[in-house]
Structures are given as C-alpha cells and as structure tokens.
C-alpha cells in the first residue's frame, strides 16, 4: 500500500499533497522508535537533552522511556499519564491538566494512524517542501489549546518523520528527533536555529 502511494504521488510538486503524505506516514501499532528530545525552557539557560525509546502499543497506549542520562518511563494510556522515575513515586495526572501534551499526543496519534480528519478537527494543517523533504505545520484551532501550544512542526524525509517540534506561547520549545539513538547524532551546536536547520535538512535520520 505504501509502495503504491509512493509510486503514484507526484515527486516534484512544489507543495506536497498533505493527504498523500499522511497516508505514507501511517504506522500501524505496535511500533517502536528511538528518540532524542531537546527542551528549551525560560527557566533554564541551556537546553536539556534526553534520549530513549517511544513505543506505540497495540492497545493504543504510548510509552516514552528515557534511557539517558537517567531512567524514566512515561505511560500515556487514554486520558491518564503516569511518569515514573527511578527511585521515586509515580506522578499521575490526566491530559486535562496538560493541554499542550494532549495537543502533541493528538497530532502524534493522528499522524501515526494517517487520520487526516482528526488532525483537521484540532489543527489547521499545512504542508510545504517536497516529498523528499517536507514540513507539516499544525496550528491549534481552539483558543484554549492556543494558550498552551503555538504550533507543532513535523519535519520529515520521504515517508519517515524526523522531528516533532512543539512551540509554546511563552517561548518554551521542545524538539523531538526520531530515529536517532543518542545526542551525538544531533548537531554540536544546540541552539534552536541550528536544530531547526538540522530538522529541515535532507539527511535521513
């Protein structure tokens, strides 16, 4: 199916067809990929970097395991989130209390399932670039979500997403690079611009 879509999609169009792109990106569960996440916070004078694995399970839940530089497991099951760090009690909360996380999960889930309808329901979807190097930008529709989440940018190469970037209104940002195994695969300069350029670059993860 993916092959068929690849074969029929226009490879050289100025803007890629978002529907076709999404169809290519769909990954049926179970699926697992490594990630490196860089977080910029207004409270910090340098970004924090963690690395681990993301696992999309058959039952629809998502498990984010941080393996470096410490161990932490986040389970996202339906509405419930639990964060367990080695040596301390699990912290549990629901998505209602973390709207930006809900926004991120909704987009992530919809992309994994190729669900254009859900994406359109919550976001204004636009795609730029080429089929080889593309960028999908998601702008939240609801005011409530906009207070916590300015936009989500997904960069990718061919049929693989490469970076998920979440920008918050207060300037905080979190960038998740998929498919790389450690911070060593990121550019040495950890500035936002350098990372954005890396995400938009053509090299395959």
């Amino acid at each position, binding site marked *: 199916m993916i092959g068929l879509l690849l074969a029929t999609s226009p490879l050289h169009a100025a803007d890629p067809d978002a529907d076709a792109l999404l169809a290519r990106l769909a990954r049926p569960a179970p699926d697992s990929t490594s990630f490196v996440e860089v977080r910029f916070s207004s*409270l910090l004078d340098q970004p924090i970097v963690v690395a681990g694995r993301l696992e999309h399970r058959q039952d629809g839940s998502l498990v984010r395991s941080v393996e470096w530089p410490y161990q932490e497991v986040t389970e996202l099951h*339906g509405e*419930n989130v639990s964060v367990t760090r080695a040596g301390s009690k699990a912290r549990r909360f629901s998505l209602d209390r973390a709207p930006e996380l809900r926004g991120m999960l909704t987009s992530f889930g919809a992309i994994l399932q190729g669900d254009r309808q859900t994406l359109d329901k919550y976001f204004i979807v636009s795609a730029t670039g080429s089929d080889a190097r593309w960028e999908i930008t998601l702008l939240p529709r609801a005011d409530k979500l906009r207070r916590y989440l300015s936009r989500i940018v997904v960069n990718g190469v061919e049929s693989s997403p490469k970076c998920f970037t979440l920008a918050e209104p207060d300037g905080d940002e979190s960038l998740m690079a998929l498919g790389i195994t450690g911070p060593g695969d990121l550019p040495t300069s950890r500035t936002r611009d350098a990372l954005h350029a890396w995400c938009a670059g053509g090299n395959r993860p």
Partner: protein
Amino acid sequence: MTKTRRGLLLVAWIATVAILGWVVDRHLVIGTDLRLFMPSPQTPQERLILDEIGEGPASRMLLLAISGSDPQAAADTSRALAAALRASGEFRLVANGESSLEAIPDSLLSYRYLLSPTLDHSALDAGFLRAQLEERVRDLSSPAAGLLEPWLPRDPTLELLKLADSWLPARQPQLLYDVWFGASGKEALLVAETRAAGFDPQGQRKAADVLQRAFEDSRTHNNLRLESSGPGAFSVLMQERTQGEAQWIGSFDVVGLVILLLIAYRSVPVLVLGLLPLVSAGVAGLAAVGTIFGAVHGITLAFGFTLIGVAQDYPIHLFSHQHRGLDARSSARALWPTLATGVASTCVAYLAFLFSGVRGLAQLSVFTVTGLAVAGLTTRFLLPSLVPDSNRDAADSALLGRLWHAIAGLPRPLWLGVATAIACVVYLALSPRPLWENDLGALTPIPPALLARDAALRRELGAPDVRYLLVIEDADAESVLRKATDLDPKLEALVARGVLQGFDQPARYLPTKAVQEQRRAALPDPDTLRASLNEALGTTPFKPGIFEPFLADVATARQLPALGPADLAGTPVETRVSSLLLQRENHWTGLVTLTGVTDAAAVAQVAAAMPGTTLLDLKQASEDLVAHQRERILWCLAVSAVLLVIVVFVALRDALRVRRVLAPMALTTLIIVALLHATGVSLSLFHLIALVLAAGLGLDYALFFEHAADDPAEQRRTLHAVIVCSVSTLLVFALLALSTLPVLRAIGLTVAAGVVSNFVLALLLTRPSTRTDG
C-alpha cells in the same frame, strides 16, 4: 332545637375548627429530626453518641455515581456538578478527585512549609535543595513539564504538590479526565458531605433536591444518570416510600369507611356529622402540641392521626343507639358514663408516653390525650344537638336479631381465658428468642440491591465506615490535634496489619501549633537560604535569580503565626478540618473516621491506650439506647396500666364488672404478643404504641357490651355500634397490615389482630346476660 339554631351551632362549630386549624397551620413548625424519638442523653457518653449518630461525617456522606454516556461527558458533568454543589451551601465538602492545587488560596501558600511534613525529616540546606533542583530539571524534560513549570520559581521543592497529594484519600479511585472513576472506567464517582445532619430527614430531603437540580443543570448529555447512596439518601428514599404507601392506604381507608358508614346508617348528614369530632380532635391536638412544644415532629403527626382514629368510634356509638322517638341528647346522656370511662382510661394509657423521657413520644401523648378528650366532649355536648331525628332503629334489623340470638347461645369459657393467659405467659417466658427488636433499621429495611450497591461504591471510594468512629475529646483544639497526631502511627500500624483499610484524622490537614512552630523554627534565615540555594544551583542549568519568589515565601513563612482552626475560614482546608474537628459547648471533639474495619477490638485497644479517646460502635450504641429507652417506656406503661384499672374501678365500682371489662383487653395483649413472637416478629416501640391502641379499643368494646342494659333492643343497638366500630377499625388496620413496609405492617397487624381478638373476647367474656324473649 330549632332548625335555625341547629344550623347556627353547626356553622359555629365548623368555623371554630376552621379558624383554629388556620392558626395552627400558620404557626405550626413540623420538625423531622429523628433524635426527637431518642431518649434525652443522661451521661456524657450518651450525649457523645447522640451527637455522633447524626453528626459524624460518615452519616452525612453521600456517594454519587454518574454514568450512562461516554466517560468524557461523565467527567465534565462530575466537574460541573461538584462546582454547583460547592456553591449551593447545602454541602460541606464535595470531592471528585480534582486536585485542589489551584484552589489553595494565596493566603495559605506561604503556610505550605508549616503544613507539609517535609521539614520534619529534611532541612532546606544545599544538599536537599540540590537534589530537589536536579529532580526539577528532569521534571522539565518530562511530559509533566507544562504542569509544573509555572510553580517552580515559587516552589522548587514542590511542597504544594506534596501537600495536595497528602490531602487526597489514602486509597482513591482511578482518575480519568482528572476526576474519580469506578474500576470499570464508565462511571464518574463523587463524595459529598451534606451540611444537614444524617438524622435530619428534612435537611437531607433538601440536600437531595439541590443535588438533583444541580445534576439536571450540570449534565452534559441527556443519557447521563445520577445515583446517590448513603444514610441520607436512604432516609429520603424510605421516607418517600412510607409516605407514598401511607397515602395509598389512606385513600382506600376513606373510601371503605364512607361505604361502611353509608351501609350502617343510610344517611349522608350522619356521615358528615360523624367526621366532626374526629376533625376537631385533630386540630385541637395539633394546637395543644404547638402551644406546649412549639413544634411538632412529622412522626407525631402521622402516628397521632392513626391513634386518634379511635375517636371515630364515639359518634358511631351515638348513631347506633338512635331510634324513633329518642332525642339524641338524652341518648348521649345515657351513653356518657360508658363513653367517658373509655375516653378517660385510654387517655391515662397514653399519658404514659408523656413521662417516657422521649420528646417525640411526649408530643404524641399530648396530641392523643387532647384529641381524644375533645372528641369525647364534642360527641357528648355538641354532636347530639345536631343529629337529625332518625326513623331507623338498628334494633329492628332482623339480621342483627338473629346474630344476637346466636351470640346468646355462645358459652362463657372463663376457664379457657385463664388457661390461654397462662399458656401465653409461660410460652413467652420460656422462649429462648429475644422478645424485642433493638435495631431501629430493621423496621425500615433498605432494599438489598441498594445496600449491595452502597457497599460497592463505598469500597471503590474508600468512604468511611458508618458504624465505627474514633472520638477524641479534650479541652482545646491543640490537645485534640496532639492526640490525633499521636494516634496516627498506631493506626498506620493497624492498616499495615490489615485491621482496617484506612483512616482520616484532623491533624493530617491541620498539624498542631507545636508541630507548625517546630517546622517554622527549622526554616533557615534568608541569608543562609540564599547561600544554600546558590550552592545548589551551581551544577544545574537553571537561570540565576529565578527562585527569588521562593526565597521571599520562606522569609514570609518564618514570620507566620501557627495556624489554628479559626484561621482556616473560607479555605478548602476548612471544609475538611471542620468535619473532623468540632467545637462543642465547652470542649473540642476530634473525629477519626475509619475505613474497612475488620477487627474492631484491635482498634478499641489502640483507643483505650489514649486517654480521652473512644471507639464508638454506633450500631451497638444506638441499640443500647433503644433498649434503655424501652425499659423506661415499659415502666411508664406499667404505671399507667395501674392508673387505668383505678379509673375503670372508680367508674364501675364492682370488682366483677371491672374484671369482665378488663379481661378481653388484657388477654388480647398477651395473645398478640405471643402470636407476634411465635411468628418470628421482634417487638419494637411501634408495636408497643399499637398494643396500647388495641388495648384502648378493647376497653371501649368491653365497656359498651358491659353497659348494655337488659333491654334486648339496647343490646342489639350496642352490638350494631360495636360491629360498625370494629369493622371500620379492622378495615383501616388490615389495609395497613398489607403494607410492604415493616413499620406500617407492624402497626397494622398488631391493631387488626387486636380488634378481632378484643371483639371476640368481649363477646365471650363480657356480653351481658340475655333474656331469651323470642
């Protein structure tokens, strides 16, 4: 008496009753606090029990479940409902799992260091701060970042979160969409504590109405349903059922009585006149209770009207003796000695309840005595002037004649009466089963399905036990809180042993002032804290200077006076503390609610080791109270029985006649008690009241039979009167006996059996000797 004067008298009578009724209706306050039917407390222990039975948090707690649509809709409704209930003023505490973090007012924010136990085992030094800051860096790169980030500059140790977590129930249901859900994930769960006491059905009714309205307004989907469970919800439900069934039975009664009286007297005016003494009795009774007590209890009202129903018999005696050529006034004069003896002795019996020490029963006594006296007097002095001349004579009835003839042939088995009495006494004395029912709940049993549902909800919510409660008493709040603090580790040990599942105590929310002061003393001075913080920050990526709000808060906390119960007013902590820490007249009471007690003795042992601490077993305590109360009522009844015999003796002045009048009633009481016991019924206060009522009826029947002169026509008229009286009473109480509610059935069965037994025994043992005149 001329027609005009008769009309004037009738109008004046009706007008007086109507005006008095209007005044009573305007001024009478109907109370519903069930404790009015409990004995007034004699010892401090009893006062404590009576306070806690209706006041304890468990008795006020309603368990709520919202289901029927998708979980998201249920969760949204749960949030809206909780907000509406909190705003309604009818509920002290509403919990649905939502974190109270945002609800903590600014005034309390700086108090977090005095309220949270962190400083008991750690100091705010560089080492502790560094460890905390490192955790916060990790938090910032975790999915919880958005949640925690806004708080960090002010609260890098997340003290507020620890506090909010520690205030959550130890065992709580799962959270979905941030609110509590049952294990199935389909129903949102809430706990609401009513402001009204558990023993106040009216207050509970109001709370239930507010709850229902709030739910209608909050529900986000039409398919959603709300279930509520708990003592308050049950009392509202049972009250509705009792009222509904009593109304249904009442309407059948009225129809039956009207038909019966029309058959007996074939006259509409007689039917209407017959109601006047009864209505006057009711209004006068209410006026008397209102004047003496200021308010009347709902139960007094319901029972009172059942009891003065006897007054319906008074005009019947008058009507049955009416015949051509007889002026009703002279007839009334002739009947009066008998009627007066009946009224007086019944009143004496009810006077017993006046001295029972139970306010509700005293009200019942005043109501009944006043009502019966008024009914008797109006039947004697007002009614006869209004009775139209009759052309009918009950004595002319051929059927009645044959019946009387047949009765005349019956034996007078005096020996059988004595033998029955002895058999009953021996049976009751030898039976191993307890005669009395001490569990008041047994009379208004809650359907098993609802009880099972309640238990399930209670388990899921970890709601406190309604039976056991630890009570701490001391002169001041600080001492109570200190004892609660000391109890805490001991109870934790019991939880670890599985003796109970959990507990809640006031010091969990409000530590003693001593503890707060100790924590305050442990706060470093601003310079030391700044130095420690800078040292801790050295190795972290945090920007310098962002923790100024934290430094300011700690500096503020160092100057804060320790919080007392009064300082909590208006905060969410107050609602929790106020239900567990109460100021009574001259002392303070702390309550420790227990969940899932499996070994009460072990808990009692812990309580016994702490002076001023008691484990209340509310079930046992209320049963003891009931037993104690009954003992006193029985003594009062014994005294009134003696008085009754004296009244009858004074009226009849002949030992043989007294014996003939009292025998049916005494024997009936014994037979009914033995019958009830033999059929497995345990006697309650309601049976006692019903027995007194039956005895009063029996006395009337016997008095009239005994009174009937030698004239066979008079004898037949008396038979007619007693048949109409007993059939009408039997009709009322037989219908009541068909009720599905044990309390109504108890009264119905007892009185119905009493009517039959009294009638038969009066015929056998009391009827006058007959001259067979063909």
